[in-house]
């Protein structure tokens, strides 16, 4: 039989330091989530395909890994955690009082282009707060996004806020066919300054035009809110962001918060605040979230929801984690197992191990082979250090 000794494209074995990085990030995040009153939900790795198609969360179907079950139904490896959690909250948890605070720590699967260097398995840690609206809910979420990246001990990072409502208000004022609006949105999302100018040229006379033209540039510090107000006039979504910022600054989060009013991705899905986290050293956002008040209704329960997910391995790659080095090998005599184990347990994890050898000579050889610095001999005469 021909056994495949390689892993499938886009998957890999994670060894040692990569595992430590992942676990370190996961445990920092999970510890924070629990402290803030979030409880864990584990959903199946495999779900029905329809769940992700009908949920309104636009995951391109070609990126889902599909399986056909024995009855012919199409299933997918979970490409996202939010839809399954919304399903759970709308069904099994529907009798619990709101708001519900849920967190997850699981893998999502997305098929990518071959040889693009990305993994098909993405470890995600995230939270969902279901059934809470208003500034306080949004504040709690943004503050936790900042604390999440801080808990991972990242030195340089920021959370960037946007609002789906700002673009919607502007686009609503434009007398533009739907198709062209979509082109406009894509140009703003891609910060294609030149293309945007061309698209807006025929609509020069309209009020919202000046603000839309500047939209891709409206990112940076809190000053962009003032500029946006000057361009677009008074606007609920800008006031909302302004209130969030002053509360966040008051609480000491201001230095980590920035804005991008040109965050106009997945507008069918996000209904209010949207945010992303950027880290020095990562070429893409490592945290992404927002408010999706329409999602739960798709599963038969009306409830607002806001949440975010952290790309655990992208954060882990920015950390400098080293695996511990073996220093000491313990050679113990008959009847001394308990003492030997106590000694192993008293050393830092990974720096000390027991020798399975019968003679001291083979233990010395083993220690030499594994690069340990010393052998700790435990026999009836006591304990002695022997240099290797």
């Amino acid at each position, binding site marked *: 039989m021909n056994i495949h000794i390689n892993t499938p494209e886009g998957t890999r074995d994670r060894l040692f330091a990569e595992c430590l990085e992942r676990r370190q990030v996961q445990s920092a995040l999970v510890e924070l989530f629990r402290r803030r009153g979030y409880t864990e939900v584990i959903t199946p790795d495999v779900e029905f395909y329809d769940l992700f198609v009908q949920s309104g969360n636009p995951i391109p179907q070609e990126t889902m890994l599909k399986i056909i079950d024995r009855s012919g139904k199409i299933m997918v490896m979970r490409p996202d955690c939010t839809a399954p959690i919304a399903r759970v909250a709308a069904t099994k948890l529907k009798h619990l009082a709101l708001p519900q605070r849920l967190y997850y720590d699981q893998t999502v699967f997305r098929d990518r282009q071959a040889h693009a260097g990305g993994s098909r398995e993405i470890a995600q840690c995230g939270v969902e707060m279901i059934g809470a609206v208003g500034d306080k809910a949004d504040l709690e979420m943004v503050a936790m996004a900042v604390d999440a990246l801080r808990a991972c001990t990242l030195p340089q990072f920021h959370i960037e806020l946007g609002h789906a409502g700002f673009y919607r208000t502007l686009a609503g004022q434009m007398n533009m066919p739907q198709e062209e609006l979509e082109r406009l949105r894509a140009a703003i999302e891609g*910060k294609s300054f*030149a293309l945007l100018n061309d698209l807006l040229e025929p609509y020069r006379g309209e009020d919202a035009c000046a603000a839309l033209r500047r939209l891709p540039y409206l*990112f940076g510090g809190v000053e962009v809110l003032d500029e946006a107000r000057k361009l677009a006039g008074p606007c609920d979504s800008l006031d909302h962001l302004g209130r969030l910022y002053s509360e966040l600054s008051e609480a000491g989060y201001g230095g980590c918060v*920035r804005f991008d009013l040109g965050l106009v991705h997945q507008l069918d899905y996000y209904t209010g605040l949207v945010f992303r986290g950027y880290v020095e050293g990562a*070429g*893409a956002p490592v945290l992404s979230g927002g408010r999706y008040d329409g999602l739960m209704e798709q599963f038969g329960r009306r409830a607002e929801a806001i949440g975010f997910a952290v790309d655990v391995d992208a954060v882990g790659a920015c950390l400098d984690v080293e695996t511990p080095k073996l220093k000491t090998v313990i050679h113990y005599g008959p009847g001394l197992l308990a003492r030997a184990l106590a000694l192993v347990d008293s050393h830092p994890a990974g720096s000390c191990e027991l020798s399975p050898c019968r003679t001291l000579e083979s233990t010395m050889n083993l220690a030499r082979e594994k690069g340990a610095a010393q052998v700790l001999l435990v026999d009836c005469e006591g304990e002695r250090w022997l240099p290797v």
Partner: protein
Amino acid sequence: MSERLRIALTKGRLQEKSVEMFEAAGLDCTPVRSPGRRLIHALPNYPLDVVLAKAPDVITYVEHGVCDLGVVGKDTVLEKGGAFYEVLDLGFGRCRFALAVKRGCDFYGTYKTRRVASKYPNVTRAFFEGKGMDVDIIKIEGSVELAPILDLADGIVDIVETGATLKENGLEPIEDVAQVSARLIVNTAAMKLYKNEITDFLSRVERELGGEA
């Protein structure tokens, strides 16, 4: 603290035009003009490092964030796609994608499935999908003009500049697929992390663009 930016330029003609534009904007590009064996060229009077790459690699480097900026043709952007900001149309490297057939051939005048050869299968697929037409697409790596001559394909989708090569080989462009020119692309995270540095660079380039127009 000012961060040094890194830009990937598409080797060849786009590289020359980019360097001309940067020099007009006051950047000293001597290290790029006489590259020697070095692969990364630090500009002496501006915090910018230049690397030279093949067009699709420019996108790869920018997407992964190892280069903050890139200059690449719209043809490659359309064919390869990806997640990055496509901020400026640099105006040079202008040409067009066109559908070309053997002179006198009525490409659309049949219900038989047409076969189209191209170096750009994704662009070709999107073009005919937009028309609701099923076509067989054959990917050709070298001179695409050969495919219709050898009767491998009914037409080709390719970059056309003057049309001279087509004409010499008995082919003619019958329809435009897309306009192409050089684009300045930016990594999404770099745009946010090094906003001041990137804005400064963009405004210098934009000033040159404005001057030309």
